[in-house]
């Protein structure tokens, strides 16, 4: 086999089979992974949730992960937010001609490893090869189906006054990691992505506290964007205390230098949960006992007043509106 992906690998002939055999089949072994046109799956008992997401991150490899891991975590976490145990996933690759096969295999191997952590099965896939310049190295789209746990009903519209707001760990790490790995800024800092599949902690929380109102993963736009979405969708006010928001010191440093707000940097392994106030401590204790959510913290609460707004108590004790997110992230000059 040649050591880079060529247009022939996408032509559907012998080389296509070779690529599937040596890269994809090797890592996506399970009873349902099929050579047929579609995979045939047993029907789950409960309601199902289904979601899809495209991944085009540049660079493809970064501190603590790669696009493959990201493509599993993104979809697993979207399902988890609906209280759905991830069952099956499909993936579609668009690969640029010339992409090294060993890198492709590294990406696929992390997909296998990440999927195994939560027991989701990759049941079908597709590979297309595009000419040079038509794709930035490799794009991946994943689609997932999950089964919603009995008695669980979460939605961005369900936040209620009195709810405590929890984040499952420090904010902004993925965004800071990608900014640094793009190497545009000549800044070095020890920052690793938070990218992680979060079904296991979500299952633990929902099993003990099925009345959680909202779970949302803070990806693009970060925790700040999620808070505004929920404030609008549930028509409630949100109050935060800046001191309670967990931020890794490296991320804080990078944000300070570039004039960015950690609350708006992307996370890939952080959930925002709205839970009835009296259940907050129990949820925090469960999360702190689970892998990937050890750093969970209560950052604020929901109010009836100031509907649609996020109010933050700042370091000087003033209450101010968290600016609403928007536009491309641009470092300020001063």
């Amino acid at each position: 086999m040649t050591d880079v992906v060529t247009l022939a690998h996408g032509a559907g002939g012998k080389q296509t089979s070779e690529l599937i055999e040596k890269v994809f089949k090797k890592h996506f072994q399970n009873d349902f992974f099929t050579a047929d046109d579609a995979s045939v799956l047993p029907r789950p008992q409960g309601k199902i949730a289904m979601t899809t997401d495209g991944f085009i991150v540049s660079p493809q490899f970064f501190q603590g992960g790669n696009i493959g891991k990201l493509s599993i975590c993104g979809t697993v976490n979207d399902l988890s937010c609906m209280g759905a145990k991830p069952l099956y996933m499909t993936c579609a690759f668009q690969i640029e001609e010339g992409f090294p096969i060993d890198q492709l295999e590294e990406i696929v191997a992390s997909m296998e490893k990440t999927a195994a952590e939560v027991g989701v099965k990759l049941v079908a896939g597709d590979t297309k090869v595009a000419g040079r310049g038509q794709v930035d190295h490799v794009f991946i789209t994943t689609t997932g189906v999950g089964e919603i746990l009995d008695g669980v009903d979460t939605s961005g519209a369900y936040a209620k006054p009195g709810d405590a707001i929890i984040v499952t760990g420090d904010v902004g790490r993925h965004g800071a990691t990608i900014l640094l790995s793009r190497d545009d800024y000549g800044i070095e800092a020890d920052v690793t992505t938070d990218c992680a599949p979060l079904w296991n902690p979500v299952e633990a929380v929902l099993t003990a506290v099925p009345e959680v109102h909202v779970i949302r993963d803070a990806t693009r736009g970060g925790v700040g964007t999620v808070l505004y979405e929920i404030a609008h969708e549930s028509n409630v006010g949100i109050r935060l205390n800046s001191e309670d928001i967990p931020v890794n010191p490296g991320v804080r440093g990078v944000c300070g230098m570039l004039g960015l707000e950690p609350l708006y940097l992307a996370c890939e392994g952080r959930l925002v949960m709205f839970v009835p106030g009296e259940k907050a401590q129990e949820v925090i204790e469960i999360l702190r006992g689970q892998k990937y959510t050890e750093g969970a913290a209560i950052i604020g609460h929901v109010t009836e007043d100031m509907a649609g707004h996020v109010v933050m108590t700042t370091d000087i004790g003033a209450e101010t509106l968290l600016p609403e997110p928007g536009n491309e992230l641009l470092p300020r000059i001063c």
Partner: protein
Amino acid sequence: MAEDLKKEDGLAKARRILQNYDGPKVRIMEVCGTHTHEIFRQGVRRVLSPQIEMISGPGCPVCVTAVTFIDEAISLALDHGCTITTFGDLVRVPGTKKSLQIARGEGANVKVVYTPLDAVAYAKDHPQEEVVFLAVGFETTTPSECLAVEKAMEEGLTNFSLLTANKTMPAAYEAMKDATDLYLYPGHVHAIIGNKICEDMLQEGVSGVVGGFTGKEILTALAVGVTEFQKGKPFFKNCYPRVVTGEGSPQAMELVDKMMEPCDQEWRGIGLLKNSGMQLRGEYAAYDARKKFDLSGIIGKPNPACRCGQVLQGAIKPHECPCFGTACTPEHPVGACMVSSEGACSAWYLYGDLANKPLNK
């Protein structure tokens, strides 16, 4: 007073002074984008007595970048095929017809960098490209831009130049002195140029305090400012002595003086101010994009309806501008005050009255 405020309960004490101030009405102008940003982010205005009015002055380099400068940068990119390297938030600032962000969609090569030296490194790695760095900013950034030219000379690079719009803070102090009772001087600028200019302003009867940039440092400087103001005589206080010394940084000033000379400079919304800018001296012409490429004849036309200048000077409120909220929004800014989230127009657009009212209903 200043000493008392530095004690453990300094923050609480400064807040109390500012909240309870009932002396004569006082207008305080911050003259620096970092101050503006932090005052906005920390909600400083919300803890001030109604007798204290904060005015955001023209010290944000982005807000005072002239339309012509943006047009020149776009011409360098689109007509001369140059690669533009720039500080991030400049890409959204509108020129006569468009911003660099829009020009990028039309094929302009625009790279956001963190320091001018990154632009030099980029030029070294891409010898086939003509790399231009957009040199905006005040005394805090000008030395690093001179350093970039020095580095490019050392490396023997012939594909790197600056498009200069460097400005000097004292020119802003002089231009705006009638719009304020008291300046909040930016600590980092005076760490470089020293305090002499503040003493000179005092001779003209203009009061001021030098302040740092954390919430506590800002409140402390403001509290000292209003306390002194009540005494009725012009004053100057350095509330940032751990960083700002009398003479500033002679090395930085020598470097700038060696490579640059004063020039007249256009400020968006204010106009042409004599000797308020810095440009490369004649012997560095090879690194001056205006001399290297023919940019003569580019004269930007600011949108005549935009009243950023009056907003910057505190003469009108953002919603009194005819463009506000219709032609000019954060997604499509006409004036620079709408570009960054802390710009007066942008804040007003997002929050309206809430930007300044208590947040409890």
